């Protein structure tokens, strides 16, 4: 018996441990952090002939990664996005004040449309303006990153509540942006040489509800939840866009209304104020 026990214990000690050596990930290429989400900002225009190809690329990436990919279409520039008033087509003005501001800030359309930003990566190194064929690889890298925040959205047609949950201790300066986008907007779009009357425009930026500092605290602590409640009047916001088109936008017409709350989504994202990188993003239907 003594020999049996000694033998048994020796076998146990020798065989009963699996010490793993790095790298610990078995397939880095296919690894995706399931909590990480990516915002693709697609700078586009309804008379931009190559832009629908970028929109299709965005949908293809969405088809691969599902809800981890959030799209936003920003119609910018006078040449590609201004309305063609009186022509019977392209009379709608998809442009917004914020789309134009961000286009100017990040100098996207200077490089030609379509262009996009993937979580606004590379702003400081001037590598943020990506052609559509560069999006997929940039998205794959972004999805491997760890997260510092989770965002929770609850909203209706009068109020949005954003809860930013801190996942790890951070000390950078972050901003919170909350936008409304609309999908299934049927209107004209140039696609190559074709003029498509019933093109479906998705994720179109309609308005920005807030862009402000995430927290006044210099250090955010794991587990902390930062709540932001934004009350709004959808009709007032819609009118503001109409006014922007009519009074401010170059060659604008004021034909920027007709919002359908049934198709509006809330997009909330947090970006690092220093690098401008979007570190987390979330979306939800307006009436959730």
């Amino acid at each position, binding site marked *: 018996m003594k020999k049996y*026990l000694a033998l048994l*214990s020796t076998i146990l000690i020798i065989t009963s441990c699996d010490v793993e050596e790095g790298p*610990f990930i078995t*397939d880095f290429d296919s690894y995706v952090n399931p909590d990480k989400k990516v915002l693709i900002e697609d700078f586009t225009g309804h008379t931009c002939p190559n832009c629908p190809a970028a929109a299709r690329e965005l949908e293809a990436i969405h088809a691969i990664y599902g809800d981890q990919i959030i799209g936003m279409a920003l119609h910018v520039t006078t040449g590609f996005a201004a309305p063609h008033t009186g022509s019977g087509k392209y009379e709608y003005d998809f442009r917004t004040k914020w789309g134009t501001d961000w286009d100017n800030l990040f100098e996207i359309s200077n490089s030609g449309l379509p262009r996009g930003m993937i979580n606004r990566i590379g702003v400081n190194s001037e590598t943020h303006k990506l052609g559509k064929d560069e999006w997929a690889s940039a998205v794959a890298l972004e999805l491997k990153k760890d997260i510092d925040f989770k965002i929770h959205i609850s909203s209706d047609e009068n109020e949005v509540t954003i809860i930013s949950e801190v996942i790890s201790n951070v000390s950078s300066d972050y901003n919170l942006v909350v936008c409304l986008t609309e999908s299934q907007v049927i209107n004209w779009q140039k696609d190559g040489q074709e003029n498509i009357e019933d093109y479906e425009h998705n994720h179109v930026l309609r308005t920005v509800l807030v862009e402000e500092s995430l927290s006044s605290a210099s250090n955010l602590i794991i587990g902390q939840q930062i709540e932001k409640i934004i009350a709004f009047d959808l009709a007032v916001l819609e009118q503001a866009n109409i006014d922007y088109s009519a009074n401010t936008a170059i060659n604008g017409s004021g034909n920027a209304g007709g919002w359908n709350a049934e198709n509006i989504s809330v997009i909330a994202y947090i970006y690092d104020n220093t690098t401008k990188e979007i570190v987390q993003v979330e979306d939800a239907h307006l009436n959730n």
Partner: protein
Amino acid sequence: MIKKISLTLTAFCITIIGFAQNNSGEFHGDFDLSMQSYQEDKIIGAEAADEIVLNNAYLNINYTKGNFAAGLRYESYLNALADYDPEFTGNGIPYRYATYRIEGLEITVGNYYEQLGGGLIFRSYEEKGLGIDNAMDGVRLKYSPLKGMNIKTFIGESRTHFTYSDGIFRGFDGEFNLNELLDTENKTRVILGSSFVSRYQKRENLVFKLPQNVGAYAGRLNIIRNGWNYYGEYAYKINDPSNVLVASKMNYASGNAFTQSITFSKRGFGFSAEMHRTDNMIFKSDRDKDGKAYLINYIPTLSKPHAYSLLALYPCATQANGEFGMQFDLFYKLKKKTILGGKYGTKIAFNYSRINGLNGGSSFLNDNTNYTPMLISIKGEGLYFQDINLEVNKKINKRIKTNFVIANQTYNKDLLEGHVPGDYGVLNSTILIADVSYKIKKGHSIRVELQKLNSVQLEDYSEHGGGYANGMEYAAEGDWTMGLIEYTISPHWFFVVQDMYNWGNENLEKKLHYVNLNAGFIKGSNRFSIGYGKKREGIFCVGGVCKLVPSSNGFSLNISSSF
């Protein structure tokens, strides 16, 4: 699973009873019933039970004859008391065993409890107060081939509620009493021990490497000479990452822990000094599950267990993931018939304990991070818990006995209770206790407890903008007083009235009295008690393992019996 176990056990019982009827073995058993009604009380946050009354009951039956023993435990949760894990539901016989000893070999099949060394790598035990029962189910062998040499090995699964966890454990322990082995009369006794345990759990992660067999080792040394006693144990656990798909949560660092203690005692005097450190030493019976039901090792707390209500209001929960702690105890009895000792002598006990976090947190290793904290760091580390207390026990005369305690405790409520920093902060409490017993006449005695707790907040989270003092998110409980009167008519009756008054609560609606009335009757080995009262939501700990007790308002009935 319950049905399967019950069927097996029914056959088992019939066999045992039949065996017992034909032999002259002995049956022993004990029974315990705890019943509680739950009424809604919105102010204290107590919820009514849909069933009105909840009930836990147990019956242990053990049969012994010579070197053979067998037994079972019937458990009934219809439904489980509110402070129990709701997974305990229904009736069953989850514990049954048979064991026999022959020529130094003990064989146990079925359920058994086991602890290797101090439990740093493995402890299977039952603690009803906490709702913990991680009994093993399998086979265990113990063998003593030589005097002073004890070997045991086991294999089994760990119980979780009415089922068993996925992990299979294989363990071994050897203990060697050198004095007995060498047959020496040396006054210094030396006992060496080493243990090993391994958990097998099938690998089910396509993205990250996962060890299927996670081993843990420990070695211990116990030296005893006259009144001195030294005990030291070191434990090591290999990589044991959780089974998730997020890289930042995959921790491949090994774990380790040590505990050291030295005590000295002689008549009327004793002291002890202890320290321990634990780093990444959570060991679970199922790597995919969380909760105390799945813990399979045990890191005892380094703080004095208190029985007085306000001293135990904020108990210390061991942070197996990472902490460093130390504790010192000093006991002295002032001699009889001296100025300070008086006619009967005076007992004085001083205790100091301090537990803090590890430098920069616990060890972490993955493809992006490789961090190991300093071995020992105290100054500047986040304080988890500190307790400084002095207890004076004095018998005044044949009728009056007294016990007085003064204590100062620091309690990191956010960290120890799993809240977000800034929810409740770090509490510092000064506590005074007076406990006086008076023997009225033969068989009649009265005991009075008066307790007071004054609490202050040590942290400032004003920049986070919480709505309460110092920027806290939630109201502080603040100051408490407590009074208790216990009247005992020996040997059968006792009556207790207790009121805990939270007069310092920052939330004015919660400046409440928590009154409890209890009465009990004891006759022979039967004990009955009934009670009514309100309980505050709080943490209840046994040996550093804690559970959240929800607030409640209702009647209780307890019956216990043994034969």
